[in-house]
């Protein structure tokens, strides 16, 4: 038997509300499959499962808020014998025998009544309450329990963000560096590239910046990974957490996995998909839990530079301000030049300003050679190549 527990979907999450199940007892599940949607107070997240198996029992019902680590469901290993219920019991709402009996007497459908008993079961008292027409206990027919009211959500999200950022500021000795990066070459390359493409194929500067961060990190692995249990665990690959502000307030920073291996079109596609899903509330648990570095881009909102707070257990955050024409001295001449201010917030327990500076310089240099940036794919996929050739 495998316990499927509520994963931590980020340092700011210590509990979650189960919104709905995508599977029911008896269903076979595959590693990586989305099985449930959980409200982390910041977003509705699609929670994936990391075992193959067959769902045995649902332990937490939609609407229940439980701490991280709570067993949400149990799974049988593939081939493991059925433990209790026949498969066709399916998602039947548990109703206690006496409640079922009483419901029959009262002519009430017990499965339409909210359960307050063990494992969410419908009890005698629930039936009596329903019979007296107390609306509070009646569950809407099919739809999943709605998320908490907006004001509550705001409050909870602020609390969660404050908790995580407070912890970060308490525990992580931050240092900050900044670097002004000329963007003329990059923007020109993008404009050239996008010119003949339909709107669906175009690439935003944000994608280029992400790619540059991933490649620059190759020189300074001390910025990419986790600080856990008193030690730094560098990451082989870059899972870039992209800070996405949510409409209505708050932000999430889900990961794009293996950024350094992606072609620009792939990366653009991933970014676009991620933003869309973040705002639609359908992020996946793996995206929430494993970014190795965060990249935040407040340039669209007009900020010149952003000095971020590291998201534990990560050890660095890269920020980009707005790309704008500013005075720039080039070859001894003062010019109006498109510039962006890149900043680094990093963890002194793992790296020093020296390494941080090397990273920013590398980042700058990468952005001066956009074609090389586009070409650099650690493991280009066939799709990537095709895109590149077009």
């Amino acid at each position, binding site marked *: 038997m495998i316990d499927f527990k509520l994963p931590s979907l980020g340092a700011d999450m210590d509990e979650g509300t189960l919104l709905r199940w995508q599977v029911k007892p008896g269903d076979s599940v595959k590693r990586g499959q989305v099985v449930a949607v959980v409200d982390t107070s910041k977003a509705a997240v699609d929670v994936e499962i990391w075992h193959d198996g067959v769902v045995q029992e649902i332990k937490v019902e939609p609407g229940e808020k439980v701490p991280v680590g709570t067993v949400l469901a149990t799974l049988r290993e593939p081939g493991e014998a059925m433990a209790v219920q026949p498969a066709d019991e399916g998602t039947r709402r548990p109703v*206690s*025998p*006496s409640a079922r009996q009483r419901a029959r007497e009262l002519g009430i459908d017990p499965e339409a009544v909210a*359960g*307050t*008993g*063990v494992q969410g079961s419908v*009890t005698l008292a629930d039936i009596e309450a329903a019979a007296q027409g107390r609306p509070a206990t009646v569950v809407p027919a099919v739809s999943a329990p709605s998320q908490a009211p907006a004001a509550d959500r705001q409050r909870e999200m602020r609390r969660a963000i404050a908790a995580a950022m407070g912890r970060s500021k308490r525990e992580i000795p931050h240092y900050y560096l900044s670097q002004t990066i000329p963007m003329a070459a990059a923007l020109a390359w993008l404009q050239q590239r996008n010119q003949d493409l339909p709107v669906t194929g175009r690439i935003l500067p944000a994608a280029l910046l992400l790619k540059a961060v991933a490649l620059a990190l190759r020189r300074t692995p001390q910025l990419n990974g986790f600080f856990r249990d008193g030690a730094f665990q560098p990451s082989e690959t870059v899972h870039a957490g992209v800070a996405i502000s949510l409409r209505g307030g708050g932000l999430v920073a889900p990961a794009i996995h293996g950024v350094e291996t992606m072609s620009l079109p792939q990366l653009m596609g991933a970014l676009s998909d991620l933003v869309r899903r973040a705002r639609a509330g359908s992020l996946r648990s793996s995206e929430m839990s494993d970014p190795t570095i965060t990249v935040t881009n407040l340039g669209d909102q007009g900020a010149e530079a952003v000095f971020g707070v590291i998201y534990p257990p990560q050890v660095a955050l890269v920020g980009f301000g707005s790309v704008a024409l500013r005075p720039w001295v080039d070859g001894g001449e003062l010019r109006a030049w498109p510039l962006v201010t890149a900043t680094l917030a990093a963890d002194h327990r793992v790296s020093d300003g020296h390494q941080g500076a090397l990273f920013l310089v590398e980042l700058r240099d990468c952005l001066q050679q956009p074609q090389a940036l586009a070409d650099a794919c650690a493991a280009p996929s066939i799709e990537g190549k095709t895109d590149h050739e077009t």
Partner: protein
Amino acid sequence: MSYREALREALREALQADPRVFLMGEDVGRYGGTYAVSKGLLEEFGPERIRDTPLSELGFVGAGIGAALGGMRPIVEVMTVNFSLLALDPIVNTAAMLRHMSGGQFSVPLVIRMATGAGRQVAAQHSNSFEGWYAHVPGLRVLSPATVEDARAMLAPALADADPVLIFEHAQLYNMEQEVPDGAALAADISSARVRRAGSDVSLVTHGGSLPKTMQAAEALAGLGISAEVIDLRVLRPLDDDTVMASVRKCHRAVVVDEAWRSGSLAAEVMARIGEQAFFDLDAPLARVCSEEVPIPYARHLEEAALPQAQKIVATVQALMGRRP
């Protein structure tokens, strides 16, 4: 009066009332009884009727059966239930079956008393609770006095029973002191369970040494706003289903508390009967608090962890209550 004194009073009364009654067992005479239950009786009734035996459980329990067949009313004391396993054959294969095998010709009016239970750091081989095993066997009546009154009052009807009766005295109860009504009111029945505390939210079904713990748990639960009814089974065979079911029908939840291991146990039997007879009255799954499935360890903290405790009972009940509106 203490539980021990109550047992002794009952023995004295029985020995005085009927010359056919005699007590036989290991160290019941000169030693005064391992648990000092029969202290002083040798002087009063002599060595024929307060008969010390060698360490021959199989032999003297078998002889007790023979003596019962021969017209006596023996009370055989097996020091503890642990040693009664050496006499399982005569108890089960002979005493319990003789009447049936003989087509109703030979009843065995025998009373066997034994100490049972754990909780005194006497380790695995002296801490068993096998009442439930005996309660499995047709032909036996199995009693589990949990109060001083029952200790005082159950012996006389047990002796009056024409068939073998086993009385289990939990070793932790011997020192328990309780008020007992005067002798006249003492004619106890040996067929029914008792409600020891009335309640309305959950039925706690228990017996013997677990009764005090269960009463304690019920008190704690009351403090948490949960009204627990405590049923003392008293008679483990034949079980008094009516009292149990009446309680379950009222409370709609039931927890069985028994010091024996859970697998294949008396607790399992009580739960099964509730499932059979009161299924539609249940508002929560049945639960039980039994000993952990381990031989009872010597170390105090481990022994405590292995046995049912009031706190475990409370936690089990709380888990059954759900999120009460």
